[in-house]
């Protein structure tokens, strides 16, 4: 494992950015749950992560060259898509509140999972540095 700060935590920092971005989009959907004509958005996670890792359409992340990771702006440019509503509403709003709540909950679990991966990486490095003495 290379110890450059670029890929110290692998894809997890990119993923963290994306989860963050997605929770922002979902929060925006829920805030606009009663806005007439509002169209619910979502992040296309697969596409975004592929473009963040430089391997479009392919999630084989471990084969990525170090230089391709670390484009921190990739997450903020994550492609947004429109959600397809489960049922139509009279005011043209396509936010499904229950779906948003479920997505938001799942998203926060994913975010914490990415945090856990980074924490584990830090622990591993610490163990390597202290030789298991710390």
């Amino acid at each position: 494992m290379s110890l450059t700060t670029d890929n110290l935590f692998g894809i997890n920092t990119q993923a963290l950015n994306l989860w963050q971005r997605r929770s922002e989009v979902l929060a925006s959907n829920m805030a606009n749950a009663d806005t007439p004509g509002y169209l619910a958005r979502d992040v296309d996670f697969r596409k975004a992560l592929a473009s963040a890792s430089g391997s479009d359409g392919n999630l084989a992340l471990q084969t990525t060259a170090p230089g391709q990771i670390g484009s921190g702006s990739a997450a903020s440019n994550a492609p947004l898509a429109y959600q397809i509503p489960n049922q139509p509403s009279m005011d043209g709003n396509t936010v499904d509140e229950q779906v948003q709540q479920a997505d938001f909950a799942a998203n926060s679990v994913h975010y914490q999972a990415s945090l856990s991966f980074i924490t584990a990486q830090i622990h591993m490095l610490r163990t390597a540095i202290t030789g298991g003495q710390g």
Partner: protein
Amino acid sequence: MSLFSIFNVAGSGMAAQSVRLNTVASNLANADSVASSAATAYRAKEPLFSQIQQQQSLAAGGSTEEGAGNGVQVVGVTESQASIPSRYEPGNPLADADGYVYSSNVNPVDELVNMISASRSYQNNVEVMNTTKQLMLKTLTLGQ
């Protein structure tokens, strides 16, 4: 840190929903108000929501992509155009020359539905804010 902007988004949602609750309270309180003419009778008020456009969101440190990370704002309060019911009450001090008073066009059922919807949406935004706060606190303790 885009998690911070969620506080703005959820906060704007809570503010908008509380305006909606406020109009519901006003409408229900005035459901039985009477006036001496149709023009001065109480009309049911309803807030008009619209999403905050991107320029404002950018100024607040929001995201760079159009259409995302937008909060909600109340662009105005509209008055119901439903007909004003009148009734014959010659003994009422507010009655006009023909003995009619004009009551409000508030529909209490509509208002109660609005109230429940506003309350649920408000709770939704509170939950979003709580979850975001927990995520941020967990991020702060990263590596421990």
